[in-house]
């Protein structure tokens, strides 16, 4: 599944200072759907190069990290259970630093 991931608010520092990543993520073997939970696990092991604890906590993002799927707050579409679709744009923004 082709997705565009964007990291902002300082999170880009965890993935080699690159803000936009065009990625191809496959659902887990035996499943036909890709959820945000799966995507977070994939990002953690494939894109985050340092200090993953700044990005994830448990199976979700660290509190204080905002997530938007196609410019919509993920809290409105199911958070970690949201099912992703082809060409979705997922934005992660840290609110945790800089004033």
């Amino acid at each position, binding site marked *: 599944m082709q997705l565009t991931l964007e990291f*902002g*608010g*300082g999170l880009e*520092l*965890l993935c080699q200072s690159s803000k936009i990543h065009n990625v191809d993520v496959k659902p887990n073997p035996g499943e036909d759907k890709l959820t945000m939970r799966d995507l977070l696990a994939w990002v953690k092991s494939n894109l985050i190069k340092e*200090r993953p*604890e*700044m990005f994830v906590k448990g199976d979700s993002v*660290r*509190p*204080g990290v*905002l997530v*938007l*799927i*196609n*410019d*919509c*707050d993920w*809290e*409105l*579409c199911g958070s970690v259970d949201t*099912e992703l*679709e*082809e*060409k*979705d744009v997922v*934005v992660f*923004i*840290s*609110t*945790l*630093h*800089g*004033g």
Partner: protein
Amino acid sequence: MEEGSATAKPRRATGRLCSTCNQRKAALKRPKTLEQICRECFYRVFEDEIHNVIMDNNLFKPGERVAVAASGGKDSTVLAYVMSELNRRHNYGLDLFLLSVDEGITGYRDDSLETVKRNEIEYGLPLKVVSYKDLYGWTMDEIVKTIGLKNNCTFCGVFRRQALDRGAALMKADKLVTGHNADDIAETVLLNILRGDIARLSRCTFITTGEDGPIPRCKPFKYTYEKEIVMYAYFKKLDYFSTECIYSPNAYRGFAREFIKDLERMRPRAILDIIRSGENFRTATSTKMPEQGTCERCGYISSQKLCKACLLLEGLNRGLPKLGIGRARGTNGLNKRVEQRNLHSERTGSSIESKQCGTLDF
């Protein structure tokens, strides 16, 4: 559900509608009210609520010259934008300008100052930059070279607070506004409880402080959630700087921050409730409070003979950088410092875990 704008995203395009206008697709869930709201309605309530806070608390008088403390970060960028917008829309009659502090941190502040310079042009607000080098004779880079990475945040925080006041005075400002948001204030209430700092606990929730001093400060974002500030900046594509200070952050504050954010996820109202608790604390009449006087060297408000900045500066200039570090009062100040240092050493390396230290000086 029905087709909606059946473009590439059929399932989510039929998502929920804004609970305010019932017409457009909701774009975010408001932490304060849990309402789902579209972008346009969000802009309006976000700005209206800040306007109401300004009016209800009589934060400004027409004709006042107001300095907007601008670091280039998200809060102050949104503050500068919204203040300038509201000033125009509601005819506050304020003479606004941006005030920035250059701490002299290569690779950090020089970059964020570039953001402020862009804001100067975009929002049409004049900018004044005051530097530690000019005010104190030292840049933070030089201070760190002398004292190392321990306590450097103390120097920076104390110096910044005074630098903003001095910059505001220099520019003949009547008031200074800062971008402290609801999350920051809730965090500070907790920290003051954790430190037993009763004097600060009682004033950290005031929307305006220093009214007896030369430059009162106020916080129009006192009830504004950080989530909404960041969403507002994101949707409006406001240009802000979010790199962490290269010198280590305040780990103790980082724990309080994380705790607040965990609470927020479970019950977003917790942030406003902590502020309300802070507002309603009453200090026992038997509690000894520090007496406010003025520094005999520079005339700045101080509860001691010398203000903290003069004391720290004297330490630097005499080669005794420990001078003025730690608390002047309290019986267990020493233990607390040791404890803090331990926390700090466990956490080194996590430089994006907490906010830039010293931005939260109340």
